[in-house]
């Protein structure tokens, strides 16, 4: 048997058969021009600062706030089926905070948000908790911080 994370057929089968929640409507917001937009990162790599992090299993739906200055981040996504060496070498391969700051310095984007947010990628099958609880709470924080555009990354 080949290693799951290196097996394109296994990943394709997973993508095709994974039970997914239904979203009958697709909201689609057009933001202000990128040159004046504030951009935040939300990652599902379970990144966190020193401390308890995330629980094992699929029941931890809380999110962590990561200040834009923080680089001492831990990879809390516990699955063994993705490549972690990239994050060990460079956090930007999962959490491209330095790239966004460079783009803000060059004027390509308006600004980088003061805070970014992290969830665990492994969630309950219904994803009811992040849909109804922590997801909307995170959205409110970003709206309160005048974020316009959210870049979502995972592992």
């Amino acid at each position, binding site marked *: 048997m080949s290693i799951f994370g290196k097996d394109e057929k296994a990943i394709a089968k997973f993508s095709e058969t994974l039970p997914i929640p239904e979203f009958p409507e697709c909201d*689609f917001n057009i933001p202000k021009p990128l040159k004046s937009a504030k951009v935040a990162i939300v990652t599902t790599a379970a990144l966190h600062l020193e401390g308890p992090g995330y629980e094992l299993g699929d029941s931890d739906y809380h999110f962590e706030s990561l200040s834009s200055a923080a680089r001492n981040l831990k990879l809390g996504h516990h699955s063994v*089926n993705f490549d972690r060496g*990239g994050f060990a*070498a460079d956090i930007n*391969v999962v959490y491209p905070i330095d*790239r966004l700051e460079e783009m803000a310095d060059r004027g*390509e984007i308006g600004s980088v948000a003061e805070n970014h947010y992290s969830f665990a990628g492994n969630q309950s099958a219904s994803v009811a908790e992040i849909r109804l609880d922590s997801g909307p709470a995170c*959205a409110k924080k970003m709206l309160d911080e005048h974020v316009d555009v959210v870049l979502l990354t*995972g*592992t």
Partner: protein
Amino acid sequence: MCTLAHVFEAAGLATLVLTPMRRIAERMGVPRALYTDFPLGLSLGKPADEAFQTQVIRSAFELLKETKGPIIRDFPISISATDSEPLQCALPARLNPDLHPAVDEAQALRAAYERAVESSKKTSVGMRIDAADIPDALAKFAQIAQGEHWETLGFSAESIYGTVHDIRSYYEEVACELAAAPIAPWATEQWFYEQTKAGEVVLKARRAMRDQQVAQEVWFGLAPAGRQ
């Protein structure tokens, strides 16, 4: 990610998803997705390649010019999980032959680990144990490999899983410090399980647990699915 994109758009934010799983984004009708055919874990494709990462982000931002969704666009460059060169990363010679080779190895790599933490200002070790505990943890895995029952060594199902996370993080961070070339996809995982004494003893312990009829949910996650 895909669920959060819907939730955030419903709240009034504009979202961009970088995803290596195109079909999930399609099936979930994600508002805006850039399909990145990169190995799982490498959202921006290449570590320490600023130009490439910036190219990926710029491609995602291009989607903001679209006026209707859902929309998925393909990033034009793919990265294979399988065709990279193995990591060239020398391991230390035996220092103390009285110790189990994995314990001796982990102790000898401590200085490199500390340099890695110093240079990167981060570590993912600490889910269950600290760096100082890695040799003792490997000694326990050596005992499991020799037939000792995992629970008599003080492990719970959660702690043994988290402990392997920490052992692997310790070694992968060391590899990034010691390797001369850029870190290729899956290179540190392959190095850990195929080249190091630590990876060898973790796999031996995993096989021993399987042979002892330990519940699969306890031992299976000690290595990637498919690794024997």
